[in-house]
């Protein structure tokens, strides 16, 4: 069982239709779509963590929400434990819910202020009509203990807790059904550094104890590096590079990954002064109207250095999707050489 993928995503797509508004100059009302996620593939093994990184709007949260079936995919397959769950309906979808759970970013918005913490943590078990041995209340107290809270917190309300404690409640709720996969959508972004470390440690402990797999969505690359085994970098709805954590951080091969890594401010003034920065120009293009060919070409620091003919190639040809072996770039070899020159 060790090397079996618990989650396999193949060519996953999510297109949100854009309808022309009442005052839209586009009277044809052609069926346009925002391709929020456009052909994403990866796999995740039991007990492992896949870090999903990228700038806001790159589709990483949409991907996570499709895996937990909060959103219906437009196309592609999501295999959980060998079965495709992307098209499940009704009873089957209900049964699937206990396998994949979610932890949300904002612990202030994700808990009902009128519900006690005990009720919130019990909610998934109630919804799934699970009666734990020893009773629901005891199970909730066990869970509270497991996430580092106290049993007497059972009857408290969310406003009595700090941000870090609320996130612990969110974690207790997510693990209550013993899921195989937890999608963590920016679980520590809203927390202060000292508290962030507590929650990251807790997530790692739970993984060690239960063998749960995480999809860890974050924009903070340092946290992702710390917690992930595999990392996938997304840009404009596509994965541009993926691989094992150490390889990707030591030897990034896609120019976007390189730029992303070099943009992270280092908490080390001397190293920061030494470090050569790759600066991207401009902003993320609109996913409603993505560039032709390589999606990154409008901001690519490399493209200007290429001969005319190869530039045309980047503009017209879509690079092959990123696999574990190669990034989604026509000139990955050159990118690696440039990066080596920089360092």
């Amino acid at each position: 069982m060790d090397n079996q993928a618990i989650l396999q995503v193949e060519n996953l797509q999510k297109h949100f239709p854009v309808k022309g508004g009442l005052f839209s100059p586009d009277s044809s009302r052609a069926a346009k779509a925002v391709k929020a996620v456009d052909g994403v593939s990866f796999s995740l093994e039991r007990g492992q963590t896949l870090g999903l990184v990228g700038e806001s709007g790159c589709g990483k949260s949409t991907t996570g929400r499709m895996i937990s079936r909060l959103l219906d995919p437009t196309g592609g397959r999501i295999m959980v434990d060998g079965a495709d769950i992307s098209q499940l309906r009704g009873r089957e979808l209900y049964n699937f819910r206990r396998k994949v759970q979610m932890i949300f970013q904002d612990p202030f918005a994700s808990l009902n202020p009128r519900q006690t913490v005990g009720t919130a943590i019990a909610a998934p078990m109630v919804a799934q009509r699970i009666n734990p041995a020893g009773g629901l209340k005891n199970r909730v107290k066990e869970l509270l203990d497991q996430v580092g809270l106290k049993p007497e917190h059972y009857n408290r309300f969310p406003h009595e807790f700090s941000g870090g404690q609320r996130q612990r409640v969110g974690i207790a709720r997510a693990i209550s059904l013993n899921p195989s996969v937890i999608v963590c959508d920016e679980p520590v972004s809203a927390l202060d550094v000292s508290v962030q470390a507590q929650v990251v440690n807790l997530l790692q402990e739970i993984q060690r104890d239960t063998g749960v797999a995480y999809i860890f969505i974050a924009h903070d690359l340092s946290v992702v590096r710390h917690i992930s085994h595999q990392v996938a970098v997304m840009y404009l709805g596509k994965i541009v590079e993926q691989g094992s954590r150490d390889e990707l951080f030591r030897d990034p091969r896609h120019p976007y990954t390189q730029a992303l890594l070099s943009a992270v401010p280092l908490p080390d003034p001397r190293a920061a002064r030494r470090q050569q920065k790759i600066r991207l120009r401009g902003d993320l293009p609109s996913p409603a109207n993505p560039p032709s060919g390589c999606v990154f070409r409008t901001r690519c620091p490399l493209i200007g250095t290429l001969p005319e003919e190869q530039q045309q190639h980047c503009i017209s040809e879509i690079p092959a999707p990123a696999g574990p072996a190669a990034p989604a770039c026509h000139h990955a070899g050159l990118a690696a050489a440039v990066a080596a020159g920089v360092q």
Partner: protein
Amino acid sequence: MTQLQPSTPATEQEAIPFLDVRNLSVKFPTDDGLVSAVNGMDFSLQRGQTLGIVGESGSGKSVTSQALMGLLKGTSAQVSGQALFQGRDLVTLPESGMRRLRGRNIGMIFQDPLSALHPFYTVGHQIAEAYLVHNSATRKQARAAAVEMLGRVGIPSPEQRFDEYPHHFSGGMRQRAMIAMALICEPELLIADEPTTALDVTVQAQILDLMAELQAETNSALILITHDLGVVAEVCDSVLVMYGGQCVESGAVDEIFYDTRHPYTLGLLKSMPTLNSSSGRLSPIPGQPPSLLDLPAGCIFSSRCEYAALAGDGVCREQRPALQAENGHGTRCHLSGPQITTIRNSR
């Protein structure tokens, strides 16, 4: 551009700091009692320098900046102490005087550009407004100045962008527009409250570069408020670490990072995962920050400090340590220098 500075001889200006804050405190009366948000802050700043104020949420860093900008005037906040800006005390200066300084001599950049920009007015209008208020200029001149400023902060086709609304701008562009608004009158002091927190790293890098560039051009002083120690390491000359409304450690940036003296700063640095660290357990600071309603009598950090016992006799819990400075590196801790060195090296 005309200077509104008081005419002080050059030599004297060297001697007195450009901004000198002494014993600044801010308290908010609430139904639950008095919240001590800032407790006796001391710092000073010279032109051309960048001071980073770091701390976690609730440590009082934003309230400090609001007090300096006079934004707490007319609220229930009780501000005491002194903040001399080119010889004028910002704490006691009446609102009319403050209005002349704000935007003109002191600019401010807020964290969330979407809520800091007015959605009903064009971006250009909002930038030109600051120019019109402080200069006797025609609308045409103000427009020209705003367009030039938009170009300088790196917004493409500024002439056309001038007439667009904030919702037309992306997050990074909005923050650029905010910077343009803050800098159009070329203030001598710029306060940036988490200017890049809402932005992606690639855009953050662009904005930080831009701020450093413009600062070098105008030789202004910059106070950068952030919770990100990485940003501090990249941009700041000196750093002030805040905890529970107090400055617990201050000094030159290299001193803070390589010769850390306060257990809280040590804990903060230790709890951060870095791009170079191999995995393993992170070392969080145990516990929660203290309630500002009821600060402990002793050292504010003592309840979370692993080394409080080392000082002996419960002194950490009973006596609040004073800020002791040595060669410009200040720390508020009962532990002796050698004790701290041992702790730092053992980690």
